[in-house]
């Protein structure tokens, strides 16, 4: 079996939402603390974290064509890294940036190994290496605290030495911090996928052989996509410790890797906004199902099966198709 020049045969189009919709959404997010209480802010933070996590995953899957089942590994490196740094020096920015970079470094090392294969093999490798990180989180007791995880992590103030020091003690403050970080990260991701780099990723996804003929080092670009996904997973993870005040091994488990996969699948892999919409739907569905039964994964599994069997485009492309059908004049836009 080789990595033959097989086009996946898919003509995936990347759909972007209208500007006014984005403006409205950002405004709603900024105003949220005025309307919603602590719980709403807490859930919103989680949605934002999963959005970043899934966005990175989709740069790898939707844009580059590599399906990773091990993103929780880098999520956990971000979370544990940030937690360790926060326990060391109480500076939020230091912790978040440090955790993210550590995850990027881990993605670089494991990425070199994982991208030696593509397709099914790649998925298996990422799952296995992700679980390697899980087993380290569980067993390397001296560093990670084992089963109990790391506890008593402070929600340190946002400090830029010599300039400002903003307390993050209230949920509202932390919400604005996460929102700001998320918006910047989402904007960067948007620029990335609409740059020549993003086009190269899509070229590799659709026709690896042709990209190689044009002189593109396919492996290098796959590695770049892998590291970007790792950085986003790490950033998402690094936002976690200050929210929960603890980090435990389940953040590294493969079931956590499933979250961005499911969010992306729900929202749609063809659309840039798919993972973000999916992250929101994911928490809505979870919230509704958990009210009726503790066995919510079985329903999630059923949703996955239904999506894969019948609605491979996800919600966003379904909505876009509807929109296009209603306004046929904008077809070519």
């Amino acid at each position: 079996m080789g990595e033959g020049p097989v086009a996946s045969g898919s003509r995936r189009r990347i759909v972007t939402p209208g500007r006014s919709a984005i403006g409205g959404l950002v405004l709603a997010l900024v105003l949220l603390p005025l309307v919603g209480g602590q719980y709403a802010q807490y859930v919103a933070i989680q949605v934002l974290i999963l959005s970043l996590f899934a966005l990175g995953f989709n740069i790898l899957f939707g844009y580059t064509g590599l399906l990773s089942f091990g993103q929780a590994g880098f999520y956990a490196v971000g979370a544990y890294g940030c937690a360790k740094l926060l326990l060391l020096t109480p500076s939020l920015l230091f912790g978040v940036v440090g955790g993210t970079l550590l995850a990027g470094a881990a993605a670089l090392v494991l990425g070199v190994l994982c991208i030696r294969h593509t397709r099914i093999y790649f998925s298996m490798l990422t799952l296995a290496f992700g679980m390697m990180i899980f087993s380290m989180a569980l067993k390397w007791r001296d560093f990670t605290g084992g089963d109990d995880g790391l506890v008593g992590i402070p929600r340190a103030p946002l400090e830029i030495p010599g300039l400002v020091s903003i307390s993050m003690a209230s949920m509202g403050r932390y919400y604005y911090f996460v929102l700001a970080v998320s918006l910047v990260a989402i904007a960067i991701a948007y620029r990335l996928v609409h740059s020549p780099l993003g086009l190269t990723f899509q070229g590799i996804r659709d026709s690896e052989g042709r990209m190689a003929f044009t002189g593109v080092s396919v492996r290098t670009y796959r590695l770049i996509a892998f590291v970007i996904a790792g950085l986003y997973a790490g950033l998402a993870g690094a936002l976690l410790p200050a929210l929960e005040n603890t980090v435990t091994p389940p953040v590294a488990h493969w079931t956590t890797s499933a979250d961005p996969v499911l969010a992306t699948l729900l929202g749609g892999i063809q659309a840039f906004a798919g993972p973000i919409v999916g992250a929101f739907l994911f928490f809505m569905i979870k919230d509704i199902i958990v009210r009726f039964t503790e066995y919510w994964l079985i329903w999630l599994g059923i949703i996955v099966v239904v999506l894969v069997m019948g609605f491979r485009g996800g919600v966003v492309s379904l909505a876009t198709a509807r929109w296009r059908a209603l306004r046929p004049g904008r077809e070519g836009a």
Partner: protein
Amino acid sequence: METLAFQGVVGLSMAMYLWLISAGLTIIFGVLGVINFAHGSLFMLGAYLAFTFYGLLGWNFWLAILLSLAGTAVVGWAMERFFLRYLYGVDEAYQLLLTFGFILILDDAVKMIWGGVFRIPDIPAFLEGHWSVFGRPFPVYNAFIIAAGIVVGIVLWLGFERTWWGRTVRATASDREMANAIGVNVPRVFSGVFMLGAMLAALGGALGTPVRVVSPGLGAAMIIQAFVITVIGGLGNLKGAFVGSLIVGVLSAYGTLLFPVFELALIYLIMAVVLLVRPQGLFAR
């Protein structure tokens, strides 16, 4: 020294569970071209079914194993017939995602039906007792597992190499369309192979019931080790799966003994080395 040799024998029996699950995984991949992420969950289902018939209902050991194979085969058949079959023409990522959905469903279904905490049923009387191996007691049951694994290996080899059915399956594996053209009922071969793979996984799970605790996390743990094995041995290759199982089984036995903290890391390290040196696997053709 004796401890080391003894631990090696213990590792061999662990290797056999791994062999049974990775054999099923490999056969399904070889013929259908699908990686069944839910294969570990089928292993777990086999274990739970055998536990129910043998441990809870107290039926005959062999009957319990047969029933657990049959039950798992039915579930496997339904997975292939009603779901996977419609995805052969689509990007293979969706096949992975589908079987991934099955993991979520099967794991939670097992929790719903059987609950969490478990006792291990007694070893059947005729397999109880110990032999003396390297001056240490070696359980007869472990020897039975090793024998069972080897017998399955021989049966599979004979079945694929020496029977009409095996030739049909190999023909389908190498060229679906051509096999179809010469009158092979390809969909039926696919169903049959998927059921065979499911039964191999179930056999591994069922044989382990008297000595291992079954828990809902079992499937995930097994599938990840099976993946490591197929990466080491080379995907779609039965010999590779067998040798890979031996390597992983024996090394984790030594790992537990020598460096308990990094026992798992050791296996991944070997996988990483194989990837760097021979990414196609040790036994790939």
